[in-house]
């Protein structure tokens, strides 16, 4: 066998250009399905892992896919909104501790997630630097956001206006970066976390401005003053960031029970509580849907795998075509090498040894191609997970 391998190596080395072309052609053919399968596998594992750690998701009636994608990954369309009263109603059932989420706005295109400190405990998120949310206008950054935007505790981060053409809409708020979370290898790495009240501030449900109730207030901004009410005109400037000196001027308008949230993570005490909670919200009169995140994600993956099956069939056809091309190459190569084979036979070489020689060359090409495809797949998966 040693001699066969030696001759095979010499032949491949001599025909190095042809060998390299064959190796790369096969490697690419093997790499594509391997990489697609690897990526889909990781995507599936990531999605399922997140879903497994979030048993229940609650939200307004509507698309279950939108709600789960929004609540788990902060991606996709913002579902119809709930009110804080709905959150309290969930709490009042006694079956679960509801963690409200309001992920509607962005800061430098990164999703802002308004929530409570319970969320950090629930997701086991820990700070790598800085401090937790303390006051209105504070934010804590996911690890990827901090790295991508090059921000650290003490920096400021401006929220994106919801609609640049709506001058009466909400004003951007300059958030204060309080801390950076340790990498969690989860969607939390790509989010900006704020207190729920800060999200309402971004929405314009709360605001802060200079005091116009005092007698020394700028008369140019006061339209009307009565014993119980002061009306200001549009010249009254609102604060765009919360500071130690102006924090007391921030106040909310409206009933807090009507303030919006986009989803709720009900953390049930146990499986029985979870089942009872779901049962309570399954009637036709229910205005809230409570979903088992895993089953929704699995349903979503079913759609993905239907598409993947198409790619699998495609990969099989490409592999079959490549196999036929390879067969053609081998047949043509054998025809070209007939004089060489004849010489070896005349010199006393067994036909079986000649077959082993060709098989060794082909095997070496397939082996190197497979190795390259595997290395390429591993590099791709590593790069994708870094990215």
């Amino acid at each position, binding site marked *: 066998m040693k*001699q066969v391998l030696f001759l095979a190596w010499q032949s491949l080395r001599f025909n190095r250009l042809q060998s390299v072309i064959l190796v790369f052609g096969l490697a690419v053919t093997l790499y594509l399905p391997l990489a697609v399968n690897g990526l889909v596998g990781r995507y599936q594992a990531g999605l399922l892992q997140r879903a497994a750690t979030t048993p229940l998701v609650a939200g307004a009636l509507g698309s279950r896919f939108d709600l789960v994608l929004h609540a788990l990954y902060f991606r996709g369309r913002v579902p119809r909104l709930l009110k804080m009263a709905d959150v309290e109603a969930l709490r009042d059932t006694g079956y679960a501790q509801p963690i409200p989420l309001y992920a509607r706005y962005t800061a430098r295109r990164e999703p802002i997630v308004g929530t409570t400190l319970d969320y950090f405990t629930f997701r086991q998120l820990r700070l790598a630097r800085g401090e937790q949310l303390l006051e209105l206008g504070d934010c804590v950054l996911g690890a990827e956001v901090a790295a991508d935007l090059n921000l650290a505790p003490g920096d400021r981060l401006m929220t994106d206006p919801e609609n640049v053409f709506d001058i009466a809409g909400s004003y951007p708020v300059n958030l204060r970066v309080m801390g950076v979370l340790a990498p969690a290898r989860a969607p939390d790495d790509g989010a900006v976390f704020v207190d729920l009240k800060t999200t309402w501030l971004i929405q314009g449900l709360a605001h802060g401005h200079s005091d116009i109730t005092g007698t020394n207030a700028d008369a140019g901004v006061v339209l009307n003053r009565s014993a119980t009410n002061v009306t200001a005109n549009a010249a009254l400037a609102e604060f765009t960031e919360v500071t130690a000196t102006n924090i007391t001027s921030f106040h909310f308008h409206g009933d807090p029970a009507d303030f919006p949230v986009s989803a709720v993570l009900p953390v049930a005490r146990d499986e029985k509580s979870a089942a009872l909670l779901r049962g309570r919200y399954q009637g036709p009169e229910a205005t809230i849907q409570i979903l088992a995140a895993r089953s929704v994600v699995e349903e979503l993956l079913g759609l993905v795998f239907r598409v993947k099956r198409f790619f699998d069939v495609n990969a099989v056809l490409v592999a079959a075509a490549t196999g036929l091309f390879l067969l053609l190459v081998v047949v043509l190569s054998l025809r070209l090498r007939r004089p*060489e084979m004849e*010489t070896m036979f*005349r*010199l006393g*070489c067994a036909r079986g040894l000649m077959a082993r020689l060709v098989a060794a060359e082909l095997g070496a090409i397939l082996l190197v191609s497979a190795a390259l495809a595997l290395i390429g797949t591993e590099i791709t998966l590593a790069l994708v997970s870094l990215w």
Partner: protein
Amino acid sequence: MILIQNLVFHYPRSTFTLRVPELVVTAGEKVALAGPSGCGKTTLLHLLAGILLPDEGTILVVDTEPPALSDAARRAFRIATLGLVFQDFQLLEYLDVFENILLPYRINPALRLTLAVRARALQLARETGIDHRLTHRPGRLSQGEKQRTALCRALLTQPRCLLADEPTGNLDSAAKTRVLEVLFEQCARARATLLMVTHDTGLLGRFDRAIHLAEVSR
């Protein structure tokens, strides 16, 4: 020695038939096999080497009857007892000169490629004047150098009988003379029997005797 008696051979789907009633070459003899094209000279060499099998008759080469052997035994006999030289050299283009010389040891599991074999290959290359080209591939050799490489390959197994099929047919006169000298020298040194096919009537005088196949097979 070589002995042929009442040999009959014909290729399938061909009208050509080779008949050799009797042919004898004694051990150590240098014999030229001449004859017009198509008279069966190469076919006769292939029959002697066991590459082809006769329809009838007896072939005895160095006390062995190749047609009576199994395929494997015939191959072993060919590699151990015979040296084959071809007109078109039949060197493997992906091996250098030294590896081409060693080829019989690479393709026959029965032969062991030892240091002694390598030394013998080097010695043969030196004696045939090809030692300065050992690392070159056949594509960079002259015709004479290619034939000397093929000659070294044929002699490496120390054959007792050398069958050469027009080894000088593709060579110019200087290369022809050199190859022939080497061939005779090596055969004399190994005391090997030489049966060489040639069209070149000018060379016939240099052999112990010449056999005209057309006459023998009449």
